């Protein structure tokens, strides 16, 4: 390998758990390199070791619990493993820098952002205050922040998520490092913001010649930004190669599976129109939050306004939108976890929006909800069987019968029946989400509300859970209200789609129509921002021109 122009060279890296040489290998013989002006995407599911690799390079591993025990990590020719803390501190910021997933927690909330960037300059340069300030403002302009003077003096909470991430990037690049490590930098951002940040990283890299090690789990993002791709799994490098080679002709089985699991943006073949009964409809549903300020002033925030949707038996309606669009508020109103401020909810022909708690009780069983985070939606102190049986027991079914039903449901969601006496922590995220589905089905509901139910799962697990939901719908004829921010997921599971923005539905219709021929500017914007939309990952080829070139 020609060593000139190589910014980062990792060879045969081994990282173990604990100091003993018998410790489990968290990173096992990983070799990769990043050249100047090149972006290497490190892809893998949770637990694959991609973040540990990055932290090893930065010298930020938790001392004593994760220990590099073999191989070498060279930054522009300099060995990093075994370098002194002092030297590593010098190298960070000047030669290598890192940006993180959650810019709010990476920034100090009580120091203005300008001063936080200034700290880097003060620590590593001998410039005077005036020059430093000029350089910072120039950098902030480069990351395309507006009104740099004002933002310089702002505290992190005054900025949006995208602006905070720009600040992080400015801080990382202000000393023009040779290597930038980006650990899922856009995962916490909305798609439209994500697209801007990805473009920004690309442009800055072109101007400064920085080498970028970009860690992500999202194949769409990979397709947008990578020059080369390295796939990791369980601490090992599965394969690496140029972007096109990996996406078109992956040589390893695992990579093929990973790509196959990425849902396509092209909506699935539409099901025949349904004439079944309407099980759920809302009319002009609204939720207003009133905030009383310290001086008695009243501020109203409309989280949802005039939301009218209709859902028939056996169909799936998707509500898509960015964070803060009000999609979760709508879901929680419909399940009556919060009380709507206006409008009506008809569930199987009965108006439930104004029923008091006691009268609502018999209707609860008709509509059930699955939450986003399977680690928090199951009570850790209660066995899986008791959790699933809780609903039926509430509605008067004897305990033994309810547990027998729980056993059937576990089979339905493809879990072993002995899971019934185990506790939630003994299961993985995907398995827990199956348990949550079983709990929701235990009451034989007419409507199942899935609030970002697959967003916290790895892509392969996500595909399995989506498949399960689809199967359950076919078998039980249940209606699904599917809340998601992910247009790919929506395209694969929904019959109809409603797009929400700032509490209102801006466009609604059959999925095939909304997602391929959007009428509203906002929907178009969302679709255009979806990362990797030129690629049909599952079929290892770019999307046919006609759809990629849609207006």
């Amino acid at each position: 390998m020609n060593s000139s122009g190589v910014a980062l060279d990792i060879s045969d890296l081994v990282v173990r758990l604990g100091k003993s040489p018998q410790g489990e290998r968290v990173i096992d013989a990983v070799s990769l390199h990043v050249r100047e002006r090149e972006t290497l995407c490190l892809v893998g599911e949770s637990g694959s070791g991609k973040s540990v690799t990055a932290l090893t390079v930065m010298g930020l591993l938790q001392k004593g619990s994760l220990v590099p025990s073999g191989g070498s990590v060279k930054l522009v020719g300099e060995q990093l493993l075994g370098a002194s803390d002092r030297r590593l501190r010098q190298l960070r910021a000047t030669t290598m820098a890192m940006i993180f997933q959650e810019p709010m927690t990476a920034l100090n909330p009580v120091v203005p952002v300008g001063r936080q960037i200034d700290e880097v300059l003060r620590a590593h340069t001998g410039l005077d205050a005036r020059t430093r300030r000029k350089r910072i403002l120039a950098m902030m302009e480069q990351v395309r922040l507006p009104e740099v003077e004002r933002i310089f003096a702002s505290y992190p909470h005054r900025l949006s998520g995208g602006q905070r991430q720009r600040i992080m990037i400015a801080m990382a690049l202000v000393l023009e490092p040779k290597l930038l490590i980006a650990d899922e930098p856009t995962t916490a951002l909305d798609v439209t913001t994500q697209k801007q940040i990805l473009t920004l990283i690309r442009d800055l890299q072109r101007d400064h010649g920085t080498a970028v090690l970009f860690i992500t789990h999202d194949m769409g993002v990979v397709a947008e930004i990578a020059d080369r791709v390295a796939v990791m799994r369980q601490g090992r490098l599965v394969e690496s190669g140029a972007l096109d080679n990996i996406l078109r002709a992956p040589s390893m089985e695992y990579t093929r599976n990973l790509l196959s699991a990425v849902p396509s943006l092209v909506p699935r073949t539409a099901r025949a129109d349904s004439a079944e009964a309407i099980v759920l409809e809302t009319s002009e549903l609204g939720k207003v939050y009133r905030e009383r300020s310290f001086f008695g002033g009243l501020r109203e925030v409309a989280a949802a306004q005039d939301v009218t949707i209709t859902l028939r038996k056996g169909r799936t309606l998707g509500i898509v939108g960015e964070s803060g669009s009000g999609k979760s508020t709508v879901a929680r109103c419909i399940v009556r976890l919060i009380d709507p401020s206006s409008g009506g909810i008809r569930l199987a022909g009965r108006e439930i929006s104004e029923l008091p708690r006691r009268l609502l009780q018999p209707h609860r069983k008709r509509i059930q909800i699955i939450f986003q985070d399977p680690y928090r939606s199951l009570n850790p102190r209660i066995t899986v069987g008791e959790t699933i049986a809780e609903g039926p027991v509430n509605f008067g079914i004897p305990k033994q019968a309810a547990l027998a039903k729980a056993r059937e449901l576990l089979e339905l969601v493809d879990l072993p029946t002995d899971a019934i006496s185990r506790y939630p922590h003994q299961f993985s995220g995907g398995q827990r989400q199956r348990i949550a589905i079983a709990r929701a089905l235990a009451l034989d509901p007419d409507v199942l509300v899935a609030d970002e139910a697959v967003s916290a799962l790895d892509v392969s697990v996500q595909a399995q859970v989506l498949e399960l939901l689809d199967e359950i719908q076919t078998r039980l004829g249940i209606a699904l209200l599917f809340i998601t921010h992910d247009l790919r997921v929506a395209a694969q599971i929904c019959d109809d789609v409603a797009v929400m923005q700032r509490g209102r539905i801006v466009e609604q219709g059959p999925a095939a129509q909304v997602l391929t021929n959007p009428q509203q500017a906002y929907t178009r914007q969302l679709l255009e921002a979806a990362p990797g939309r030129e690629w049909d990952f599952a079929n290892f080829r770019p999307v046919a021109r006609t759809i990629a070139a849609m207006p």
Partner: protein
Amino acid sequence: MAIEILPEPSIPVTTPFRPGLGFLTATPIIATASICLALVILSAILAPWLAPHDPLLLAPAQRLKPASALFLLGTDGYGRDVLSRILYGGRISLLIGLGAAIFSVGVGLVIGLVSGFFKWVDAVVMRIMDGLMAIPSILLAIAVVSLSGASLMTVLVAITIPEIPRVARLVRSVVLSAREEPYVEAAISVGSSLPKIMWRHLMPNTIAPLIVQGTYVCASAILTEAILSFLGAGISPETPTWGNIMAEGRAYFQIKPSLIFWPGLLLSIAILSVNLIGDAARDALDPRMKQREGGK
């Protein structure tokens, strides 16, 4: 969308949330505290068999005798055996400590659960609790005892009342954060009744902090009882309690300081042991404390 199932990482089978009593011997200091407390408790329970004399028997001829084979710790101003009185006194002190811990935790748990869940109850009840916390606990206890006469029960109630707000606030704060958990919302949506949600899903979250708080209440109740007795506002003076023994011993402090020394020593050992065990319980039950230790 058929794809080959990728195996998810298996998760080792462990059962948390049952920390057991292993923490009682976590370090040599805590182990010593556990042994000391066990000895104090045993001696109090077995007082009728261990005590060489009747703790109430007056023997004017034997006043203020020094330690001897007959009276191991000597006698007090009325000729009563000091060792016997201390052993019997432990029964009252420990009973008050345990009783105050159980009552305040029980009442505080109910108040905290209810006011953590219902906003309108919260507004009223928590202001009452704030008011109670503003009154010095000794003053409140003296007032209660002098209004209703000194008996074991009134002293217990007087000591328990000021402890309730602390427990209630603790439970309330735990409930306020736990009720936002999705598993509680899930329980609401499967139609569980409010009492069931409180008992099954919220209450278990409070057990660990309550065990810790209970030990602190216990220690401070033992001390408060001793103070009340010492001030003469506690249980009637002839009843042997550590506070009463010290109060009477005060008159003879110049002649026979051991009258104050021995009950004082036992009082200190009991309180120190309970507090140390409380700290150990907190470390064992709060995973964050463990993590910090592990990070060192």
